[in-house]
């Protein structure tokens, strides 16, 4: 089919769906006036039952913790798949030089850039760690902080040479961190079972409200998520950057055809 035919199909679908969607939109609860009591009950109960001030973290890591374990594993699956795909023919070996697109200018790094990058990378790294640590108290947490820490690695690439980046950021270590984080989450879910509690039951002391270590098991789960996300995104960025390395004896198979 060509583009015109596809657009005709879309228009037909639109003609049928537009009245249905209109009916649906008009029947929706009015914006800003939710019907659900679920959130209100969480807001009312969680600070009392768990001594925690960030309700989103309470939902993520405790009340609906098994959801988050599932999402965590999605991350694992997506990253494992990406690594597998990118490494497939490239192999495990690493290159020392960055590649370049012919015809595009490559300005050399000035000292100021290097300094700035080192500075920002450090700040970003620390900020990410801070965010992971304070996940149960203020906005942020393992997911956001982990991504920030991982992206601070990229600044190393920007500021230092490609070789330095390769030497500092170690693939297998990051992969191990990723796996360990996920494993820790699974253990946090499984260990309470041995004591006769429900899976993921918050059996640790809850701490005091607004304290760094408030929320009991949530703190541990949050750190586990942080480790896993740092590992996952670190591996991800590493493998993507590796795609732009200098071609040596690139074994890309030009398959049977063309």
């Amino acid at each position, binding site marked *: 089919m060509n583009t015109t035919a596809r657009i005709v199909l879309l228009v037909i679908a639109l003609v049928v769906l537009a009245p249905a969607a209109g009916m649906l939109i008009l029947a929706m609860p*009015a*914006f800003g006036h939710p019907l659900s009591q679920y959130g209100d009950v969480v807001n009312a109960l969680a600070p009392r039952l768990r001594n925690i001030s960030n309700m989103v973290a309470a939902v993520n890591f405790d009340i609906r913790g098994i959801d988050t374990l599932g999402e965590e594993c999605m991350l694992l699956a997506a990253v494992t798949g990406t690594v597998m*795909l990118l490494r497939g023919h490239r192999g495990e070996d690493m290159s020392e030089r960055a590649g370049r697109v012919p015809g595009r200018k490559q300005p050399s790094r000035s000292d100021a850039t290097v300094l700035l990058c080192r500075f920002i990378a450090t700040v970003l790294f620390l900020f990410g760690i801070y965010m992971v640590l304070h996940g149960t108290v203020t906005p942020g947490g393992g997911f956001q902080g982990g991504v920030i820490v991982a992206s601070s690695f990229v600044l190393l690439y920007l500021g230092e040479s490609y070789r330095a980046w390769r030497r500092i950021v170690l693939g297998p270590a990051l992969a191990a961190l990723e796996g360990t984080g996920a494993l820790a989450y699974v253990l946090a879910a499984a260990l309470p079972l041995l004591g006769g509690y429900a899976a993921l039951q918050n059996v640790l002391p809850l701490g005091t409200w607004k304290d760094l270590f408030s929320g009991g098991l949530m703190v541990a789960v949050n750190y586990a998520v942080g480790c896993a996300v740092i590992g996952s995104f670190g591996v991800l960025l590493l493998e993507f950057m590796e795609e732009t390395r200098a071609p040596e004896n690139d074994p890309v198979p030009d398959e049977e055809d063309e």
Partner: protein
Amino acid sequence: MSILAWCVAAWLFGIGVYGIVTSRHYVHLIGCLAVCQSATYVLLLGIGFRWHAGPPIFYDHPPGTPAVDPVVQALVLTDIVVSAAMTALLLAIALQVHKRRGTLDPQHLRPFRQEK
């Protein structure tokens, strides 16, 4: 105002699908998928929103002050992080396709071809 959020969500999804159907570059198509996905985020956060309520974080204000629904926020938050990894997966597949075929035009890529 009371239906604007839902209309925006529907519009984003619709235009994303339009973009996918007419796309001529796989990287563009993946961007359109991201637009479709952002429609679901707008919908979900819109569902949990409440006028004159604060964020569901009781650090500056004490528990009991009106706050929006934390449940949908938790649902969206993790999904955003996963979506980045999924985008990476898609881009990785597209890159490998490009290495083998030399094109990224979705209208020239099909898994099987007629044997002549």
